[in-house]
């Protein structure tokens, strides 16, 4: 089932299907390793609920909900 990264709950895992959004943000996501078929684990949300912390390609990355909404994911059944 396809789902946006911004809709993930902490602890949920999935694989990137595609990345949408505008040039700069999209390119930045690619450069940080958020490319199709990359595995992502949503670690947590910040105390105020917004930026998200994800685990990808062996490191921790933070991004805002609006940016995570550009990432279309395939949910992985644990």
């Amino acid at each position: 089932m396809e789902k946006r990264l911004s809709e993930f709950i902490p602890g949920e895992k999935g694989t990137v299907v595609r990345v949408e959004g505008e040039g700069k943000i999209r390119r930045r996501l690619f450069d940080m390793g958020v490319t199709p078929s990359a595995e992502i684990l949503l670690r947590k949300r910040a105390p105020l609920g917004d930026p998200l912390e994800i685990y990808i390609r062996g490191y921790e990355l933070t991004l805002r909900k609006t940016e995570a909404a550009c990432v279309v994911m395939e949910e992985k059944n644990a």
Partner: protein
Amino acid sequence: MLKFALAGNPNSGKTTLFNTLTGSTAHVGNWPGVTVDKRDGLYKKLEEPVSIVDLPGIYSLSPYTPEEVVSRNFILDEKPDCVINIVDATNLERNLYLTTQIMEIDVPIVLALNMMDVVKKRGDKLDAKKLEAETGLPVIEISALKTEGVQELMERAYAAAKEKREGKTVLQKSALAHVIDDVKIALKAQEVDNPLFHAIKLIEGDELEVKMHPSETRMVEEFKKQFADDVFAGDFEAMVADARYKYICAHFARAVTRSQSADTLSKSDKADKVLTHRIWGIPIFLVILFGLFHLTFGEDLLYLNSIFGFAKDIDTGNEVLNAFIAVFYSSAGISTPGVLVFNLMGFVTDQIGSLIATGLTNVHAAAWAQGLVNDGIWAGLSGVLSFIPQIMVLFLFISILEDSGYMARVAFILDRACRKFGLSGRAIIPMIMGFGCSVPAAINTRTLADEKERILTTRVIPFFTCGAKTPILAAVCGAIAARYTNINVDLLVFALYIFGMAMAVLMVAFMRQTTMRGEVPPFIMELPAYHAPQAHNLMAHLWDKLKHYIQKAFTIIVASAIIIWFLSNFSWNWKMVGIEDSILHDIGSFVYWICTPMGFGLQLSAFGWVFVVAAVTGLIAKENVIATFYVLAPAIGMLIPEWDDGESGIGAVVALMQATGITWQGLLGFTIFNMLTLPCLAAVTTVKAETPKGKFRYTIIFWALTSYITSSLVYVMLTWWWTAFIVAAVIALVVAYFILRNKGKINLSFRKKRRSVKTE
């Protein structure tokens, strides 16, 4: 001389390696046109000395951030003899992504595999030989921290620099290989340097390249059409990034064997669980922040004296010894590290100052010479010196938080709150530092990636009332309370603090709507693993940051101190006089009418110049405002009341109120003007250094206008309460305009988008 460039991801240990290589020869400046650190130095342990240039830490060679553009242009245009690509072995995949891009340039490269010790400690295995075979580049295992393998690295780099290398790409086996070759051949025919690199960037649709090679762009467009039905729908930028990562996973990453699964929590993860906890994250941040300020500015270590009340001044009978003891321990309590070094510097400058003063008296120097040296040069110099140790302590603490990886988490925790008014989470640190001192705060804005955000932040930093402005607030509020007994001093001071912060938020929001429009920069950031900071690195940081300030301090600040001293001690016919007959007084009486709307101009008739002069002397250092009050009150014929302690300034302000007839509204106008106007010269010069060329004058205008208009409004509203309704109505109108315009803008852009979709 050979020139080597250091390139790599942020947090890959690049700075540590650079410091190890260059030692004391390092030189820090700015890249031309942008405020990005430019560092270079010499490595001397080869046959010949080699120049090392540390490129900014980057993740990619995309055209979007100044750091990336700087690095890319350096490698392409300055043609270093070798690029040392430092790679964090604990995070191979993402680090090698940059490597795959640098590889495409016709430049010799060596890979420095850093943090191998951490990899081994984890029990993972990394086969450097395998990586060398796969990439075709020399791979050297190093530990920048323990300086292992560094000499070997440099020898290999030296050998590599002697040979030519042609760019290679990992995209050779991808679907794009064909078009890459075609474009490369076309570029080669035009004798373009680095044809492979440019060809691939063109295919990615890189903004900088498309402008440079329009004819090849058409070729790419043709090719794109054939790909329209692919998964990527002709989106080459995505295809290229995807192909790079796929290749890295398939080939390079095979050099690693992990001993444990990614899901096990490391020490760093455990620390993170607590420090960014949903509930405890923010309170912990506040406690750390409070501790930081306490250790830098607190006079009573851990409030031991407030709790136990043991401290008293020690009298040894020797004044100098008493002063020396007071550096460490006084009736206020045991000094915190920051206060200790502050006192120590004060003690040293006082002693030197009195030595100079007695020396000058002994040789019977002329009065003007004594004044010039004591009150002009030395006062300016010691004013500058007095800041430095405390700033260094504050910086040391901040650097520890920065190096350990906690600062990135602070940005993570607070981003949401900051975004509400147009900044990202990172901007909160320099602003809070502003409560201590604007100078380190302005230097700290370097950590902000976005230029607009940096300018915005440096502009509002002075609104966070710094340690030197607090005495003005305390004196004015104390004096108002002394005359109108029903006012609570602490509450009034606190209200002014809050007012400053509110102004900062308001002005950021206002500028975001007018002169500094633009989106809040994206917040896609690595959260580096926590690690203990390195003393060597911290010291290098400190020195980098302070060097610039000290240089400015000894030139501009001392020069201005001398000028203001001259203006306040001389009359037009070159005679030394009291401040009440000085040139400064005349200038003050000439312009004081401007201050009428703020409540300290024409209302005070003959004494209007008094507050103008005080504000001008405050430019050297805000502490001077109170000192000037003490000089001016007796000078205009009003004795300081006897109950005054000679330090707080309350008595001086009361005396000035009696002498000039200034109202409490006027005094508040004066205070707010001082809070919001140009900060002291030390801060002004620092902000100038951190502001891109040509933008600084607007910052000056911004400070002048904001302080003038705001304090005028406050004075008018406090004096005639009904004007508050008019002001409120005007503000409501402006806000309504912005809201309507923004809504209109959203609609407009929607329409545009729909139209463009149709035409496609």
